[in-house]
């Protein structure tokens, strides 16, 4: 049995490596592999032997780490429990591939053997994931222990999570068999009540966080969190979860050896439950394998249902009424706004943002009863970071444009529209989404700028208002400029682009994504450079002019200064708009020409 499994896994792995090696004969895959390998080396492997590598941060205490880690594990296991009990039919299932179902289920194998086949198979994945996580966490200088303790620690945590999921699935199924679905609802209600009790306990014991200390903030905040959790939940609630995290948190081999025994208690109980509970799992496993096979097939064809995960598409309402006549670009906006509704909903986003903001602000008020200006630096820094990531990653993540319709290129090319109109129409939806996000962040900055924060008041209110207005005006064309780059990449290298959409794994796939992300960053930086230089020159020239005017007319200097700043900003914005809009126009026109010449069928030939 074990031999058969090992044979299956080793042959599959060998064939997969051979296939990947064959792909490396193509220069683009080889280049991606080199980039991916260099990234892995510099980001993970090079730091393996650097004991004090990474940021110079103070070490976190093992007890604090175990408590915080245990709390996170508790949350994960609660979510896993809710998932198991919330399944519409709590049907027991184990993860088998379509081929494994076809070969193993009719074979003369006992139930226990099938379960062991599954558990051993999942152990191989868990081992690989443990190694990957170890490479990541070994870079963190604030952790104790070494690579071995981290690897085994991760293995215990991941195995516990996996076995707990199986056990909970079997328990839910068995309970439904015995007591019907009424109990399922009661368990879910109980979970909700439990979550409410935990949140309430945390709320009541909330204390002001420690002051920010550079070099000590990780251990400082971990200690603060651990103390908060201990006071809210007591030491008993988290005990078993702390045991599971303890080997990972162990600072020495001796502490690690002592921690391993208790850590294996929960996984052992889960294993016993899976083996001993007489629950039929074949039907559920077969249905699950079929769904996975359909998902993989959809992913290979680039279908949205495959790319976004096993989300069942359902009909969505039109965002607005589309009349038969008018600008055809609006048809693409309308279409793609319907398309994004399967993963994006304005109302849900607004509710989540509103609820999150309410809780954070209330908590901050409770722990930091002070003025709004005190939060301004935090808001400014958060908004700046968020804006940077939206600018950097947004165009790669929000791709409901030509990239998502690349396989429908023949259909689009049949339409009586010039290429640029199709390209521009397709870009409108991601442009609106990203612009909306950036405008929200600009609003947050605006709030901080007028909150009484002293650093912001260096500029007059008029200048601040003008600056915000200028930023708001410049955002949409810059966003479209950013979208031109990934769309150009998709049209220039359709096969390559399609590979990154449909193939998840491999060093070369990672390299491809890196090349796309960094390439986009570089291209946008180059495209924005002329606009930035011209804007800077305009501001400098205008400032020089304002000094001359101020010298000539020294009366009412402050208001004149403010007006000149505003005029300079407006002039600079006009220049930036002109340059960026020109680049966007040329880019979209060129993309349209490229789209008109595209033959997707021959481009995607292997």
């Amino acid at each position, binding site marked *: 049995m074990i031999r058969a499994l090992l044979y299956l896994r080793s042959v599959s792995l060998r064939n997969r490596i051979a296939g990947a090696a064959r792909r490396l004969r193509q220069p683009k895959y080889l280049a991606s592999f080199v980039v991916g390998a260099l990234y892995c080396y510099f980001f993970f492997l090079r730091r393996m032997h650097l004991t004090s590598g990474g940021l110079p941060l103070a070490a976190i205490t093992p007890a604090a780490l175990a408590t915080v880690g245990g709390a996170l594990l508790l949350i994960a296991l609660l979510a896993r429990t809710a998932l198991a009990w919330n399944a519409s039919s709590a049907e027991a299932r184990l993860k088998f591939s379509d081929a494994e179902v076809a070969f193993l289920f009719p074979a003369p194998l006992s139930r226990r053997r099938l379960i062991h086949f599954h558990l051993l198979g999942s152990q191989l994945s868990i081992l690989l994931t443990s190694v990957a996580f170890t490479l990541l966490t070994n870079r963190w200088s604030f952790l104790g222990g070494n690579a071995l303790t981290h690897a085994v620690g991760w293995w215990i945590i991941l195995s516990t999570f996996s076995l707990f999921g199986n056990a909970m699935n079997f328990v839910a199924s068995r309970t439904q068999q015995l007591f019907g679905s009424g109990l399922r609802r009661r368990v879910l209600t109980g979970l909700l009540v439990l979550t409410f009790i935990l949140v309430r306990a945390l709320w009541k014991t909330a204390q002001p966080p420690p002051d920010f200390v550079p070099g000590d903030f990780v251990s400082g905040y971990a200690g603060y969190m651990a103390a908060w959790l201990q006071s809210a939940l007591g030491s008993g609630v988290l005990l078993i979860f702390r045991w599971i995290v303890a080997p990972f948190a162990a600072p020495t081999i001796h502490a690690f050896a002592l921690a391993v025994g208790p850590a294996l208690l929960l996984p052992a109980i889960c294993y016993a439950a899976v083996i001993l509970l007489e629950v039929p799992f074949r039907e559920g496993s077969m249905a699950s394998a079929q769904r996975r096979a359909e998902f993989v097939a959809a992913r290979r064809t680039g*279908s*949205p*249902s495959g790319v976004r995960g096993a989300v069942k*598409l*359902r*009909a*969505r309402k*039109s965002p607005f009424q*589309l*009349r*038969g*006549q*008018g600008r*055809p670009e*609006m*048809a693409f906006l*309308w*279409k793609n706004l*319907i*398309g994004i*509704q*399967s993963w994006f909903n304005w109302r849900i986003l607004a509710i989540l943002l509103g609820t999150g903001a309410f809780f954070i602000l209330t908590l901050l008020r409770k722990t930091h009863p002070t003025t709004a200006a005190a939060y301004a630096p935090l808001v400014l820094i958060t908004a700046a970071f968020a804006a940077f990531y939206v600018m950097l990653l947004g165009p790669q993540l929000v791709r409901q444009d030509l990239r998502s*319709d690349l*396989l*429908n290129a*023949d*259909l689009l*090319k*049949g*339409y*009586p*529209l*010039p290429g640029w109109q199709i390209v521009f129409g397709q870009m409108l939806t991601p442009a609106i989404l990203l612009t909306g996000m950036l405008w929200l962040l600009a609003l947050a900055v605006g709030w901080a700028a007028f909150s009484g924060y002293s650093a912001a008041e260096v500029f007059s209110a008029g200048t601040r208002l003008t600056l915000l207005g200028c930023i708001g005006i410049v955002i949409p064309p810059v966003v479209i400029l950013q979208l031109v780059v990934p769309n150009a990449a998709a049209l220039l290298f359709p096969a390559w682009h399609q590979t990154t959409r449909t193939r998840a794994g491999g060093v070369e796939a990672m390299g491809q994504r890196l090349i796309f992300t960094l390439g986009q960053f570089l291209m946008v930086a180059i495209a924005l450079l002329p606009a930035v230089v011209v804007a800077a020159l305009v501001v400098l020239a205008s400032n020089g002019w304002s000094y001359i005017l101020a010298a000539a007319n020294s009366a009412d200097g402050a208001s004149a200064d403010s007006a000149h700043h505003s005029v300079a900003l407006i002039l600079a914005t006009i220049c930036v708009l002109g340059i960026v809009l020109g680049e966007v126009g040329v880019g979209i026109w060129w993309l349209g020409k490229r789209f*008109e*010449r595209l*033959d997707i069928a*021959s481009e995607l030939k292997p």
Partner: protein
Amino acid sequence: MIEVQGLTKRYGTFTAVQDLSFTVRPGEVLGLVGPNGAGKTSTLRSLAGIIPFSSGSVSIAGNDLAADPVAAKRRLAFFPDEPRLFDYLTVRQHLAFVARIYGVADYESRAQPLLEELEIADKADLLPGELSRGMKQKLVIACGLLHEPSVMFFDEPLTGLDPLGIRRMKDSIMRRAQAGAAVVLSSHLLHLLQEVCTHVLIVKQGQKIAHGTLAEVVARYSGGQLGVSLEEIFLRATADGSPVEAASPPLISTAAAQPQTPLGLCPESGEPPLPPPNPSAESSANAEPPLLSPESGGDAASTPEPPLLPQ
């Protein structure tokens, strides 16, 4: 009307379509046939403006496809063999989207009869993922017909349809041709061509093998035999060593000007029979069969019609 002159499509060094010339007038249905890999789909995709052709010229309803593709595409509809649809738009939303693209102001009054004609009116709020292949094909056809094109290209239009659907589709194509549309139809279903097409164009390895009314093509390859099926004609025409039709005047140049029956006969004049080129396709390898041209037409009154269908 479709006018094609010297159409050539190359993929790198491979020539998929070579120097193809033909004309399809309003009311005509041209059957495009050939073995797998003959270049039929490349021809249709080039004619529909989906892929740029390498050389030659294509005119769609008087609009040069290369010079003014937007005007040309406004007059045509292309129906691919594999229905391509947007996963997240319902049937009704597909029609609304296509209507805006083509600027069909009164699309709602046109859409409902179309959906009913194609028997998908009750599926209007379903997504493509919830439709069978045949239903998807019908939706593609509804989208293509919404703007009432005067030129239509069908690539294997009956794939996935049930027998009733096939019957209705054939009727629909013929009705639209009778209303003045020029239709090109690619299919391996030769009985479909016999029932629907007025003309046939046989291609092989990207080159024209034969072109004319069904009667002309049958006459050319039947070798004087009676009751030769179109399938047999097709096999003879595309057999190894069969002659490729040189760049010659289109066979339909005169015949097509007259009203045609679906079987390609000119009811008033009948078609002049072609002398049997050779007893068999194999022996015709080195002999150029006589082509029908205005000058080469025989005496219609004194010659019997060649058999077109299996007796």
